[in-house]
């Protein structure tokens, strides 16, 4: 039996890699992928806790998260493609039309 702490370590590690990616990468596609990683980290934690507590709430939650993540990725990719068509790169440091 794998103890719950190992799942937690995995989830926290994945989550921190995702946070690092969001904060450090400048390419919008990588940022999107990092966000997906964070969502999956949360999924790992949800499913692990579901086993720990012996109820299914966490697993049900994980199903919905998968669906939401897909919808979010679809919209995000569409927006990124729209940006790409107008300026040929998706570096988030180049977004300078809107500022104070």
């Amino acid at each position, binding site marked *: 039996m*794998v103890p719950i702490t190992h799942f937690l370590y995995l989830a926290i590690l994945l989550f921190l890699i995702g946070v690092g990616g969001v904060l450090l990468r400048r390419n919008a596609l990588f940022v999107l992928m990092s966000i997906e990683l964070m969502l999956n980290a949360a999924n790992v934690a949800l499913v692990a806790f579901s086993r720990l507590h012996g109820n299914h709430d966490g697993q*049900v939650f994980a*199903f919905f998260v*998968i669906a939401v993540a*897909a919808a979010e*990725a*679809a919209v995000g*990719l569409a927006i990124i493609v729209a940006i790409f068509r107008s300026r*040929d790169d998706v570096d988030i440091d180049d977004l300078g039309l809107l500022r104070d």
Partner: protein
Amino acid sequence: MAASYLPALVFLAFAAVMATVLLLLTMVLGPKRRTPIKDEPFECGSDPIGSPRVKFGVKFYQVAILFLVFDIEVAFLYPWASLFRELSCTGPLGPGGVCTGAPTLFGLAEMLVFLGILVLALGYVLRKRALDWA
């Protein structure tokens, strides 16, 4: 504690063996005819020499995005399928999963509502010509 990771190790080993065997099999069994095009370095179908800034058709993204969304919906069928006996029985389930009440279409109807919304979305996609490749 290490023993509890044995299934994961077996899984990894199986994946590695599977990949290796498949690669080896194609190497051994596949016919080899050399053509100039085949001798070029392979780069995922795009031209290896030239500007890397080749614009892909937006259609690729569109189809990929649509696949992503519709693919996920299958995940909801699994929990429904595992509960289908309970959902189509008016009474509690007896031993061996035998229905003690009368059969009902409630479970089926629920899934039909869900799939109906999906079909509506698919119809929307078709009507908007998002899948036309021209």
